[in-house]
C-alpha cells in the first residue's frame, strides 16, 4: 500500500499551536474551585448547625483519630455526605446527558426531555407514589426502568421506516413518547387526588433520599453512563462535521447517535430516580459551558458539563437546605435562581 505523499516530505518549519488554550484551562480551574467550595459548604452547612470541628472530626476522624459526637457523626456521614455525593452525581449526570444529546442530535435545544426519558421516569415514579405508596422503596428502580423503557420505545420507533435513525425522526418520536407518558402521569394524578401532594413534591425535584442505600442501587448506572460519555467525546466531534464526513472518517453516525442516546437515557433516568425532575441542568449547562469556554469541542464540553452541573446542583442544594432551616425548600427553583442570572450574564458577554 503506498504511503501517503505528505509524509515523504521533509518536516516543514511550521509553528505548532499550543496544546490547550489558556481560556479553557482557566475555565476548568475556575469551575473546579467553585465545585470544591460548594462541596465544603454542603458538608459544613445544612438544616442544623454542626460545629466545624465536629465536621472535620467526622470526615477525617479515621486519619486523626479524633471522634465526633455520635449524633453529629450520624448527620455528617449518613445524611450530609451521601446527599453531597448525590448532588455531585446527579448534577454531573444531567449536565453530561444534555451535552450528549445536543452533540448527537445537532440541536441546541435537545435535552433528556426531548427523547421522552424524563416523561417515562416521571411516570415510573408516579406509579409507585400514586398506585402503591407502601412500596416507596421501589421508587428509584421504577423511575429508572420506565425512563429506559421510554428511550427504548423512541429508539425502536425512529430506527424503522424511512430515514431510519435520522435526527428529525428521533426528535419527533421522543416528543410523542414523552407525551404519552406525561398523559399517563396526569391520569394517575387525577385518579388519586388525595396522594397528589407527594407526587407534586417529587416532580419539583429534591435531593432528599434515604442516603447510602439509594445511592448504591443507582450509582452503577450513572457510572456506566459517564464512562460511555467519555468514550463518545471524539465520535461526537466527528458527527459535528456532518454525517457524511463522519462516515468518511470511518464512523457510523447512526451507531454513535444510538449509543449517545442510550447513555443519555441511562444518566437521565438514574438522575430522576434519585432526585426527581431537574430539566434545567440538561438544557442550560452545556450551553453555559460552551459560552464560557468559547468552543463546542466535545472533549471540552462533555467533562466540563459534568463539573459545572455538579457545582450548580450542589450549590442549589445548600441553599435549599439552609434558607428556611430546618424546613427544606425544593432544590429545582433554588438551582434556577442561582443559575439563570449567571447564564444571562454569559449570554450578554457571549464571544
Amino acid at each position, binding site marked *: 500500500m503506498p504511503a501517503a505523499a505528505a509524509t515523504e516530505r521533509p518536516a516543514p518549519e511550521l509553528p505548532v499551536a499550543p496544546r490547550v488554550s489558556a481560556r479553557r484551562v482557566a475555565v476548568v480551574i475556575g469551575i473546579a474551585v467553585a465545585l470544591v467550595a460548594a462541596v465544603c459548604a454542603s458538608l459544613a452547612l445544612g438544616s442544623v448547625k454542626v460545629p466545624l470541628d465536629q465536621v472535620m472530626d467526622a470526615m477525617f476522624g479515621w486519619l486523626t483519630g479524633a471522634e465526633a459526637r455520635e449524633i453529629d457523626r450520624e448527620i455528617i456521614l449518613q445524611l450530609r455526605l451521601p446527599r453531597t455525593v448525590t448532588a455531585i452525581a446527579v448534577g454531573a449526570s444531567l449536565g453530561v446527558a444534555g451535552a450528549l444529546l445536543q452533540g448527537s442530535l445537532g440541536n441546541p435545544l435537545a435535552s433528556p426531555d426531548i427523547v421522552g426519558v424524563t416523561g417515562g421516569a416521571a411516570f415510573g415514579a408516579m406509579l409507585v407514589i400514586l398506585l402503591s405508596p407502601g412500596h416507596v422503596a421501589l421508587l428509584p428502580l421504577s423511575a429508572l426502568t420506565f425512563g429506559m423503557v421510554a428511550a427504548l420505545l423512541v429508539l425502536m420507533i425512529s430506527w424503522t421506516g424511512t430515514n431510519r435513525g435520522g435526527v428529525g425522526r428521533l426528535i419527533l418520536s421522543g416528543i410523542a413518547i414523552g407525551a404519552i407518558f406525561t398523559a399517563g402521569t396526569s391520569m394517575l394524578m387525577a385518579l388519586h387526588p388525595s396522594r397528589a*401532594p407527594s407526587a407534586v413534591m417529587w416532580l419539583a425535584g429534591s435531593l432528599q433520599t434515604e442516603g447510602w442505600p439509594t445511592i448504591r442501587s443507582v450509582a452503577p448506572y450513572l457510572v456506566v453512563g459517564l464512562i460511555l460519555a467519555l468514550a463518545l467525546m471524539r465520535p461526537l466531534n466527528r458527527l459535528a462535521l456532518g454525517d457524511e464526513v463522519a462516515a468518511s472518517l470511518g464512523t457510523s453516525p447512526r451507531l454513535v447517535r444510538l449509543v449517545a442516546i442510550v447513555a443519555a437515557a441511562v444518566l437521565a433516568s438514574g438522575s430522576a430516580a434519585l432526585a426527581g425532575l431537574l430539566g434545567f441542568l440538561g438544557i442550560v449547562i452545556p450551553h453555559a459551558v460552551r459560552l464560557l469556554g468559547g468552543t463546542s469541542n466535545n472533549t471540552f464540553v462533555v467533562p466540563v458539563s459534568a463539573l459545572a452541573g455538579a457545582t450548580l446542583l450542589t450549590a442549589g442544594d445548600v441553599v435549599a437546605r439552609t434558607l428556611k432551616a430546618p424546613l427544606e425548600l425544593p432544590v429545582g427553583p433554588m438551582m434556577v435562581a442561582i443559575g439563570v442570572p449567571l447564564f444571562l450574564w454569559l449570554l450578554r458577554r457571549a464571544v
Partner: protein
Amino acid sequence: MAGVTVRMPYARRPAALRVLVLAVLSIATIVAVLAAAAPARAQAPERVVALTPFTANVLAQLGVTPIAVAEPASTEEKLDPRLRSARRLAMSHPNGPNLEQLVSLRPDAVFSSPVWRAGTPKMQQLGVRVYDSLDPQRLGTVPIGIKKIAKIVGKEAQGAALANRVQREYRAAARGVRKHPRVLLVMGLAQYTLAMLGNSWGGDIIEAAGGELVTKNIKPIGRTSEGAVVGNLSNEAVVRMNPDVIIVVPHGAADEVDTIARYYRNFAPWRKTKAARTGRIYVPTDDLLLQATSDPASLIRKVRREYLKN
C-alpha cells in the same frame, strides 16, 4: 296640704313626661318591627347537608339530622349512629359532591370545608348557601366551631352546652399526664418527612396528650390560613431533635398501612433516633390526627394509651 294626693289634670302634666312616653312608644315600635323582621333573616335552615364528618357529627349531637352527608372515607372519623338514615353523597376532588345531585336535594344550607372549597362558588351560583370555613383547624377552636354551627341551625343553647361539654371532656382527658415524651408527628408521603408543626390540629392533640411536639417552634413557610401547618422537615433536624416517639400518619393510603409501617420503621435516616431504637415508630390506620374531630377527648385518650404511653 299634707296627706292629700292631688291628681293633676292631663293637660297640665309636664312636657318631660310627654317626651318620655313618646320615646318609649317609638322604641317599642322599633323593637316590634325588628322582632318581626328578624325571623325573616335568621330563620333556621331545615334542609341541611353536611360534607365533613365534624359538621355531620356535631349536627347529630345538636339534634339536627342532615338530609345528606358525605360518604365517609375509611380513615375518617366515624359517623354518629343517628346519621344512619341520612343520604350518602359520593365525594370527588376538587368540588366535592356531584353538584346536580346536591342541588336536586334543595338544601337550605351546606356545611363544607376548605378541602372542597373549589365547589363553593359553583354551589353558590346555583343558589345554595354554603359555609366552608367552620371546620376547626385547631383544638382550641373546636368549641367555637360547635357554637357557630349551632347558631346557623338555630340551636344556640344546645350548641353552648355541647361546646362546654366537649371542652370539659378533652381537658379532662389531658389531665394526669405522667410522662412527657418528645414526639414527632409526620405525614407519610414517599421519602419526605412532612412534619406537622405547632400550629396544626395534630400538634395540638399531641400537646394536649402530654407529648412535647419537637416541631413546636418551627415557623411554617406560607400562611397558616392557607394550610401551611406542615413543613418538609430535613432529616438532619430529625436526627438532631432525637424524638422519643415518631407517629407517621399515612395520608390517603390506608390500605397499605402494613407495608408503610415496615418502610418507616426501617427508614435509614431515622435509624439513630430514640424512637427507632426503642421501636416506638407508630403508623395509625386512620387520619384522625390530620383533621378536626367532634370528639377530641377520645382521640387524646387513644394517643396517650397507644403512642405516648403516659
